[in-house]
């Protein structure tokens, strides 16, 4: 089981690395889907099958499709690829790599530092999640629905003029 976890983790890390380094948006998105699927597996291993399913359906499914759709709409040609090559010189990587590396090291140090290992309990039932979701967290659910509504209205409003004036 731990082996499974390590494999999934390695896949996720490598795939994510590919995402942020790739020049082609569509390829990057496909790598991201792979990474998300790996994380979904980890969710399953951590005893959260419901969330794993949501990760696949919503993240890897809906949201990524949205991205791909936008990339297709933008219709980016080889010009963009050249531009990306120009933008992504090796020197660009130094400062962000240092920052992110330091942050990651700090976090890893915190997480692994000293205390006795915390092992995961046997997982949480979907029923339990549902009970507290529509029990104590009801307000949060409502707020989330309002947020989605706002996102819907906002996206509609911002994207409205696109088709008419674009070309």
């Amino acid at each position: 089981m731990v082996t499974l976890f390590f494999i999934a983790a390695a896949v996720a890390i490598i795939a994510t690395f590919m995402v942020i380094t790739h020049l082609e948006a569509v390829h990057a998105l496909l790598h991201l889907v792979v990474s998300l699927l790996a994380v979904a597996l980890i969710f399953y291993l951590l005893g959260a099958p419901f969330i794993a399913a949501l990760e696949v359906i919503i993240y890897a499914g809906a949201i990524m499709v949205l991205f791909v759709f936008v990339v297709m709409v933008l219709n980016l040609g080889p010009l963009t690829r050249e531009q990306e090559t120009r933008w992504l010189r090796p020197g660009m990587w130094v400062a962000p790599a240092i920052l992110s590396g330091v942050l990651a090291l700090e976090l890893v140090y915190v997480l692994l530092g000293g205390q006795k290992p915390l092992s995961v309990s046997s997982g949480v039932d979907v029923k339990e999640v549902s009970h507290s979701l529509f029990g104590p967290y009801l307000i949060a659910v409502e707020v989330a629905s309002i947020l989605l509504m706002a996102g819907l209205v906002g996206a509609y409003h911002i994207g409205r003029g696109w088709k008419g004036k674009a070309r």
Partner: protein
Amino acid sequence: MTDQIPAEYALVLAAILFALGLAGVLVRRNILFILISLEIMLNAAGLALIAAGARWGEPDGQIMFLLVLATAGAEVSVGLALVLQLYKQFRTLDIDAASRMKG
């Protein structure tokens, strides 16, 4: 389940993914890639929540993840609409092209 995954490992993975996402945000000038990197960071945060929830056997972590998911959905929809508008205005996806606070 005989051998269980230590929660630290999952958390460390979340930290690594988060750092990678951060590096992506900082290094890319293409707004589309910045949005993608933001998704990576959100997902990493969700992973940390799930791991913590699993460690304590409480449903709260998963609920938080659901809320993060909702946030991510709203953020992506608005963000992509902005990408489209940006491209329409500037004919480029360069984020630095939009450094002036005027249309």
